[in-house]
């Protein structure tokens, strides 16, 4: 396999990283809201949030992407490939991240919230400044795994026409008749990216440990 072919894979991995990173970040903010919804004492809000989680966790990402790409235009919403890809990935990861965070939220000691109450923090300030940061710290390992899962699942966005790492590997394999070295190289690129993500995850955990007995 030539360096040019390998370089094409590396270039395609840029899209894999870009789409995954954007979706993980967008998904995180959606998940925080969904999680707040699930834990809310307001029943309709809690039911809606749980429905969201059930749907996006209970259906395959591939189906979600296809629904967004083909169904939305039927109701007059034309979504470009890039938007469909980010939308699908981020809503899916939001459902998983919300469930991960829920465990974290439920492990935040009640006394810390009582202290926030006594200091006059509003419910929203307590959520943003106390509960969410602590929940994230408690669930960092699981959140890192979820980021890695999304990086790998992002190969599915090829169905809406985004040529990322896996699709590029498939195309190159069929045009060069060298499937083995090309897929091995693609796997290697995924591995390197995910090792970097895992490394960042560990750094974050170490930083969080300082602020956590």
């Amino acid at each position, binding site marked *: 396999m030539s360096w040019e072919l390998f370089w094409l894979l590396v270039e395609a991995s840029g899209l894999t990283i870009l789409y995954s990173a954007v979706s993980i970040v967008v998904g995180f903010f959606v998940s925080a809201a969904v999680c707040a919804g699930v834990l809310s004492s307001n029943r309709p809000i809690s039911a809606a949030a749980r429905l969201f989680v059930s749907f996006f966790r209970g259906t395959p990402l591939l189906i979600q992407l296809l629904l967004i790409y083909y169904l939305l235009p039927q109701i007059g919403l034309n979504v470009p490939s890039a938007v469909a890809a980010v939308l699908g990935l981020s809503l899916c990861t939001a459902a998983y991240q919300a469930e991960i965070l829920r465990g974290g939220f439920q492990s935040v000691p009640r006394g810390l919230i009582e*202290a926030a109450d006594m*200091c*006059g923090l*509003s419910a929203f*300030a307590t959520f943003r400044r106390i509960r969410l940061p602590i929940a994230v710290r408690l669930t960092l390992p699981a959140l890192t795994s979820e980021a890695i899962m999304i990086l790998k699942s992002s190969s599915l966005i090829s169905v809406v026409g985004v040529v990322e790492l896996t699709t590029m590997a498939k195309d190159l394999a069929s045009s060069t008749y060298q499937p083995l070295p090309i897929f091995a190289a693609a796997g290697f690129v995924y591995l390197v990216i995910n090792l970097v993500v895992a490394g960042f995850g560990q750094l974050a955990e170490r930083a969080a440990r300082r*602020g*956590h007995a």
Partner: protein
Amino acid sequence: MSIVSAIRVSGVVKRFGSTAVLTGIDLDVPRGAVTCLLGPSGSGKSTLLRCIAFLEEATDGIIEIDGEPLGFGLDPDGVRMRLPDASLRKVRSKIGMVFQQFNLWPHMTALGNVAEALVTVRGLGRVEASEKAMAQLEKVGLAQRATHYPSELSGGQQQRVAIARALALEPKIMLFDEPTSSLDPELTGEVLNVMRSLAETGMTMLVVTHEIGFAASVASKIVFLDHGKLLVEGAPAEVFGKPRHPRIDQFLDTYLDRGAAGLL
């Protein structure tokens, strides 16, 4: 009484399910003095303090802070009713609370803990909030520990930071819920010293404690609870001096057994 009490508790009842923890408490906490709530475990003293902080909602009765009803008030017909949240927040802002488990936010430094509400609640700028927070940490002798996280501080230091955090909001009344109960004996002293100097500034303090020595020497009023009832109240000399209530005799015995006789 011509002067409004700092805290007035009238007919407070607290039930958890069918268990009555407080069975009708009436209590006046005087201004500018230390009042200690004593009693055996399960007597309801922490529950009473938590009701006064509105961390628990009393099942019945009225609690007034500085003459203003907290959480529940009486409508014109004298029927108890829940007051709007805005009123609750306003009245509650007069109270600072110190917990047995310190409850410092673990992801913030000592300075961050003290400055947090100054920024998010009082709306101060970061710089001003930090300066104020630093001044409070200095008062509890922890300015050099400002950038440490709670996990890097001893229990006594954590509790002093928690006191600074409460004081930074300039409360009129400080509530302490067994502030030294989760500390080693050597660390208890440093927290009690901070509380002593706070008392000397004329802060109104209501303290749930097992530190009989502290209560006897610092408090101007002792309140003894037993089985959810207020059994005895008065100056330390009246409560601890002879003749004393047999229940208090019994209670003190457990301390005297442990060599605390010299403190009384």
